[in-house]
């Protein structure tokens, strides 16, 4: 009896059955993984469009709710300090879109950083954004040696583009 209590599949027939269950589970798992990894789901499921995708979509982009992702073009930011009326350009390798946004951007927002904006393309030719998200890359660097790191310096640094040339994509 103690043998049964310590071993739920004590009989050979039962163990064969649980091993079959294991093989079955593995088969289901492997098929699911293959379908997701190799089945092109990453082509059909898109989190955001790049400016190139947006231009390629043509008329479909107007009025539809869209996420647009890309880099903030250097020198294109206007009205950063204001509560509204922020404007900037978003680009990828081959396309560029002008974005108008309301609200205060996150502190990390600056030139050359990745952004994902939610909104819609207008007939006037700009992207009206109602949600602005900043996307940073996987680089985490200590400040250069001897750089003063008091709070004010830090704040200035976070809004500047210093040191970005080596980290921009």
């Amino acid at each position, binding site marked *: *009896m103690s043998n*049964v*209590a*310590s*071993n*739920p*599949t*004590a009989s050979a027939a*039962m*163990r064969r*059955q*649980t*091993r079959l*269950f*294991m093989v*079955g*589970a*593995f088969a*289901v*798992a492997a098929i*699911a*993984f293959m379908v*997701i*990894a190799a089945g092109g789901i*990453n082509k059909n*499921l*898109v*989190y*955001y469009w*790049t400016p190139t995708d947006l231009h390629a979509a043509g008329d479909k982009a107007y009025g539809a709710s869209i996420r647009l*992702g890309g880099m903030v073009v250097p020198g294109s930011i206007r009205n950063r300090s204001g509560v509204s009326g922020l404007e900037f350009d978003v680009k990828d390798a081959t396309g560029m879109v002008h974005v108008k946004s309301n609200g205060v*951007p*996150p*502190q*990390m*927002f600056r030139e050359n950083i990745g952004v*994902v904006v939610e909104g819609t393309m207008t007939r006037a030719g700009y992207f009206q954004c109602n*949600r*602005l*998200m*900043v*996307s*940073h*890359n*996987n*680089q*985490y*660097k*200590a*400040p*250069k040696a001897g*750089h003063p*790191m008091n709070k004010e310096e*830090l*704040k200035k*640094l*976070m809004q500047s583009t210093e*040191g970005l040339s080596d980290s921009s994509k």
Partner: protein
Amino acid sequence: MTEVAMTPTQTRSNLGRAIAIALLCIAVYIGLVVTLADEYLHADLSLGLPLAVRTLIAVFGGLIGAIIFLAGDDLGGSLSNVKLLFGIAVCFLVLGTYFGLFVAPPERFMGEVQRIMYVHVPTAWNGLLALTFAFACAILFLFKGDWKWDALMEGSIEVGVVLGFLLCCQGAIWAKPTWGVWWDWDPRLTTTAVLIFAFLGILALRKFVDDPVKRGIWSSVATIIAYVDVPIVYFSVRWWNSLHQLQSNPNTVSEPFWIPLRANAFGILFLMTAFILLRARVSKLRLENELAPPPLLEAELGEAV
């Protein structure tokens, strides 16, 4: 002190324990001691191993060492293993917290906010590790049919789900000041949420099934299938456009940041292993209680599966 003759099982579990401790020591040495010596003593203790090899040794040494340690515990009355793990975990977490809060410089763009990385990333690694334990336990339960694996699986899933929940909270706290939002349905965040709910579902399944044999088999099968989401979470940032950044590696993270990151990773690893052992003991006691009345047991086993 009375001499107690060792049974073969005890000898084997002692050997397993020794191997596990050796692997964990190697992982800590390669992962943390080498970095500490390099940073503060300017001494090269890396034994000439390249960085990529060292990273792999630290990761797999920790993973396999912890699995062997879990497997070698008898889930009995003695809590010496649990106490040992808790003690080691506290040391690492104190070290990691001190370095993370007071020694490592602020990140050049994110500033002080970036320090949350020192808990967020170790939580993510260890959460996926806990679910990997659960996956291994599910296979061993179905293959070997020992209740020990059922108990360890329940413990691992529960600890993994708690770590996953903490991961999302920490991530949200980090995301608000950097991304500008608490949460968005980007591929990494969505697949992580799916992972947590899938394993939460398996815990619910275990509560609903009264027959221990069916419960063990069904939840093992479900664990193997749900585990598919773990590699998907890992690769999500490469397969899809996402808001979440790609995985970092030692080349994209400055060296002063490595010490708190790795000290906390080992701290959470030991803490997690201790919690899994404690939680598995509870599961085992419950199981013994359920299996206790012999007449019922035979009837249950007869109609099981």
